[in-house]
């Protein structure tokens, strides 16, 4: 599989949130008005102006306290349900060189809710006028030989980016070294997270739920006409 991928090693993420700020800075996104809700996680969720969000969860696993950090963003699916749902390449399309899933201003014309519902990772967010937005892989940086802003700023090596082959190799290598590590949906997406706990403890949508790719009727219809090999690859 050509194109690019991220490898997100949550085991070394310190939740410094450099990635969250770098994303806003590169994209020139405004800050949201926030309050402290009794958590460090802020803004509370992704939004039309927040593409990258570090999620914080305090959990107790086997009597041991864990503070889990999950730098959430679009997974750039190899076969994006949002793209299929939109079915409009002027609104949602895949960049052929990198595999980045990109949204344009034409998303305004789409059924925003249907696109949002189609995403197994609960990523796209709509503006008041219905325009959709999410992580764009810093495609403008990547096309010019730069790393995505979030990767460039990461001090610990939690955020990595490169060719899909390199990232899969790195993910495999790291997984072998870390006890109990698992990779999330690595075969389906371009943002490969490595975790050590039950992925649901990090975030409800850390992994695609079973049958997630069937949530939308439009997608189901599409699948019916797709070659069987594609379906079997998912199983």
């Amino acid at each position, binding site marked *: 599989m050509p194109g690019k991928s991220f490898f997100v090693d949550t085991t070394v993420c310190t939740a410094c949130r450099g990635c969250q700020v770098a994303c806003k800075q590169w994209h020139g996104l405004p800050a949201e008005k926030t309050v402290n809700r009794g958590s460090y996680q802020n803004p509370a969720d992704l939004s039309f102006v927040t593409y990258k969000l570090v999620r914080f969860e*305090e959990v107790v696993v086997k009597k041991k306290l864990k503070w889990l*950090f999950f730098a959430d963003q679009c997974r750039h699916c190899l076969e994006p349900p949002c793209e299929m749902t939109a079915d409009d390449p002027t609104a949602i399309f895949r960049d052929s060189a990198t595999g980045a899933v990109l949204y344009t201003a034409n998303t305004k014309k789409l059924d925003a809710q249907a696109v949002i519902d189609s995403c197994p990772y609960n990523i796209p967010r709509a503006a008041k006028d219905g325009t959709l937005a999410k992580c764009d892989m810093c495609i403008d940086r990547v096309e010019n030989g730069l790393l995505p802003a979030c990767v460039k700023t990461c001090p610990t090596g939690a955020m990595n980016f490169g060719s899909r082959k390199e990232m899969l190799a790195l993910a495999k290598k790291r997984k072998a070294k870390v006890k109990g590590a698992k990779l999330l949906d690595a075969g389906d997406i371009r943002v490969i997270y490595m975790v050590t706990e039950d992925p649901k403890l990090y975030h409800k949508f850390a992994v695609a739920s079973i049958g997630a790719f069937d949530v939308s009727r439009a997608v189901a219809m599409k699948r019916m006409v797709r070659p069987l090999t594609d379906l079997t690859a998912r199983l």
Partner: protein
Amino acid sequence: MTNHWIDIGNSDCILISGSNAAENHPISFKYVVKAMRKGAKLISVDPRFTRTSSKADIFAPMRSGTDIALLGGMIKYILDNKLYNKKYVSAYTNAPFIVGKKFSFKNGLFSGYNRKARKYDKSTWAFAMDKKGVPKMDRGLKDPRCVFQLLKKHYSRYNTKLVSQITGTSEADLKKVYKAYTATGKTGKAGTIMYAMGWTQHTVGTQNIRTMAMIQLLLGNIGVAGGGVNALRGESNVQGSTDHCLLWHIWPGYLKTPRASNVSLAAYNKKWTPKSKDPISANWWQNYPKYSVSMLKSFFGDNATKAKAFGYNWLPKVDDGKAYSWLDLFDEMYKGTVKGFFAWGQNPACSGANAGKNRQAMKNLDWMVNVNIFDNETGSFWHGPGMNPSTIKTEVFMLPCCVSFEKEGSVTNSGRWSQWRYQGPKPLGNTKADGDIMMELGFKLKELYKKSGVFPEPIMNLKWDYMTNGMYDSHKVAKEINGYFLKNVDFPKKKKSFKKGQLVPSFAYLKADGSTSSGNWLYCNSYTEKGNMAARRGQEDAVNKIGLYPKFSWCWPVNRRIIYNRASVDLKGRPWDKKDWVVKWTGKKWIGDVPDGGWPPLGSLEKPNPKSKWAFIMRKHGHAQIFGPGRADGPFPEHYEPLECPIEKNFMSKERMNPTAAVYATDADAYLTCDPRYPLVGTTYRVVEHWQTGAMTRPQPWLLEMQPQVFVEMSEKLAKLKGIKNGERVLATSARGSLECTAIVTKRFKPFKIGKNVVHQVGFPWCFGWRWPETGKEESANLLTPAVGDPNTRIPETKAFMCNVSKL
């Protein structure tokens, strides 16, 4: 740092205590991760489970202010289980020294205590000397009066059961920490400590650090790669500013500020130049007069003639026995004795302990000059909460300065690297570089003194020639700091000659006769005839491949990247750690890092090579100090409770608090211990999203978005007791002030079992202030903290105090 950031990656065990490195030094984690990937263990000791703790192999919670108990327990563990590096301890530390008969320790007090003066007579802690005037020693460490045996006795009381009662850390957790860390005592293993204000901001702050330094010496962890005692400095250039005399009691290069009793230059140099009778002791400070005279020459140039004692008499002297620290300055300002104040790059209305006192103190000023990139709570104190501007006479001048990236100059990081930075964008609008503001100020003072003024010599004689084309020139200052030959000088022994006007190649060439200048001897070697060393960007590692990168920037002293590195080898000059070695004797010379002096190895202790020197060249007797008779509060660290604490009696002794702590007595200085109104232990800290008081980060929308409000973190149990819900606004109070904040109810704080009682702790970030965000409701946590100081440094005890939290 004795070592440097990259070197953390060489460690086998990293203890992060008194620091939340992941949040406050995020880049450090690059190297922590590197070490961990090679198998290093990470230990986090903190009252609260932090983002650092989330990455640790071992997390041990402890009550704020009990570090000496916890670390003292580790010393006992090391000694009981013989985990120390005996060869290292015997050869390089003062463990073999015999302590004089007058020394004793009883009921929590060392010998020589004067309760009325709250001071020790330190002469009772002196070493026993032989006929030649060299300390008597027992290299076998068996003499009952040797430091090693006294150490054993002192820490025999620090058993894990008692330590656990004091710290609230479970015995099981204590043992886990001790076992993991002390494993680095094994030859070839290295453990490091990363600490910050969580250790220093206590009435026992200095002794907290000393306890760890002692552990590092016992384990042979000083001088080696991946070891050392590493202070993570809180600002990008705080190491540089300390090196260049930020603090009142030191001149540049850690020379002493003269006391009134140092009546002449000769008396000053005599007082502060240590003398050793031991021919094997390098006693490096014997060069003191060369550094003090060269500094005076750099200040006053040609005016600093020998006949005028090189200008010594023009410099201010401090009264003997009197302190002029931050706490003292604000105390005097509060009392009305200080009338003018330059607040330069600081925000004491939020950053200082007992910030409410500081704000009240500012009302007594005639004038204040606020030099900052933004207006802040200090410059605007007169219209802050509770202030009535019509009754405040203080005239405030705001001088907007440019930011660091808009000017050229050096920044010295925690690892002692002086790194040259070029100018990025030009200063915005009418802002000016600090250097330009200072130059102008100097010229104006000269102009005014020329007309009239009492004692004009210090100002009129200042050399003050650091401008080029009417602008401050950082290269001229950097060269001045390095120093020049002021005459043609020959060094026949070294077979070298230098011409007047040449830059001095290193401090080994500085002289006490006025023929050299150097603004800071420690930086002599940083800007030489070879160029600006700090501007170097060489990417090549040294021969030992441990990440020294000797041609990247420049490091004091003389580009030595790991100090005390002569202790990283055995007596024959062979590294303890064969793989990650720092220096190595080839038979003819040292290779690797710049060694602590080029003398050959000692060879043996019985008959040391007469050409050699003991390893710790900065100490008078050449040995690192496990017994430290120079500190104000005792030669061995002892656990005392914080000034404000939750228990009536110190479990360790009859002395509850540090008997020499600096306390203040204005009506704004209330201290309450074991008062039912303030039952909670409080502490303060920073967050990764804001920097210091937040003056630079609160106006930044992306950062404020992430941490918009001041908060108090508390355990679920405490919240339940108080009926407080997560995310609701609450009121925190102490004997000094109050703070409205948002409650974060978290599993990351747990109640402590202290003796038979349950003690709750809470914590506040101190990065807020009323000036911004615009609601004006997010205030500084320093409104709660006490102005009480460590007796050695007068650093305030903001990390452990008593408070309460209640529903609004």
